[in-house]
């Protein structure tokens, strides 16, 4: 029976360094091809083309996400202080935050990002905060319903600015430092 490769462990006073066996490199990496670092531009192009082929569905998917957000709002309104209700709403907003731009609705993503910050940062769900939550959801729904895809849309930008000011009045300025470039 073939012996499984074992990790190598180097024990120090307060910590150990463990070098796992390089099974992935051994199995998947080989010498050859056209790239010095393994970056296969043809594979990347194939993947991008496959993603582009899905794009016809993106608009419908965005409408699905918007409907999911509305359903989560209804649950949230039954008891805004209930943590499960808030988590349901948060996950719906969080999905749009992550997917809005991919689906061609960057403004919906930006608005959802603000909504997540509000839900993350608000100390409690008082009447004023719930109103602001609703205002964010209304804006996201409007952007999706009206097919506003231009990131520079003047009306939307004004609204986003107003929502930001209202949000900062509740959760503070620059409460969440965002990393947008290459991160960890």
């Amino acid at each position: 029976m073939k012996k499984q490769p074992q990790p190598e462990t180097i024990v120090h006073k307060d910590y150990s360094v463990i070098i796992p066996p390089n099974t992935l490199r051994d199995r998947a990496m080989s010498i050859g091809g056209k790239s010095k670092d393994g970056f296969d531009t043809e594979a990347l192009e194939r993947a991008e083309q496959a993603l582009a082929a899905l794009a016809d569905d993106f608009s419908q998917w965005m409408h699905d996400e918007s409907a999911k957000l509305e359903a989560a709002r209804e649950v949230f309104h039954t008891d805004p202080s209930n943590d499960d209700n808030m988590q349901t709403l948060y996950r719906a907003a969080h999905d749009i935050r992550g997917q809005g731009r991919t689906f061609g609705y960057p403004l919906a993503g930006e608005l959802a990002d603000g909504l997540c910050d509000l839900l993350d940062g608000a100390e409690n769900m008082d009447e004023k905060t719930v109103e602001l939550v609703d205002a964010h959801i209304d804006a996201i729904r409007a952007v999706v319903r009206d097919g506003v895809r231009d990131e520079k849309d003047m009306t939307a930008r004004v609204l986003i600015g107003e929502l930001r000011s209202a949000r900062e009045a509740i959760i503070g300025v620059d409460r969440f430092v965002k990393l947008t470039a290459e991160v960890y």
Partner: protein
Amino acid sequence: MIRVDFNKLRFLVIDDNAHMRRILRTLLHGFGAREVYEAEDGAAGLEAYTTYLPDIVITDWAMPIFDGLELTAMIRKPGANSNPYAPIIMLTGHSEKSRVLRARDAGVTEFLCKPISAKALYQRILNVVVNPRPFVQTKDYFGPDRRRTPSANYVGAERRGSGEVEVIEQQPLYNKARGAM
């Protein structure tokens, strides 16, 4: 010159959003992967991890039952499963610095912010295959070495506590290959 064959790698994608799973599957197949398994929450993800023994895990953070952070902690828990070393790529809408640090401290290997880009995902996968990091175990951490590169300018206290700094370099295979050419 090196080549990474995605068709020799087994992926597990964990995300509660069906659209995102579809996008990830599409990209991974585009890269050349054949084996892509899916799970829709942290609990199903852990079960799939023990069943399918994936080579690389791509997980969301915010999920029902238990989230991507808890899932990472469970995978990394020494003795809890047969492979605590699998690379975990966290793909999430969270981009707050504090969240990135929490994910790092839970033991994720790579962190990737949504919106997803094919190139960024490809680069992360390549990195975990070609440049694997050693693992470190302290009394309160088990996971990939959080020091990606030794800092010559670091003047603070030695946080691992032993006073000695030892960075174990892993020689990438392609460097060895180049040297032999």
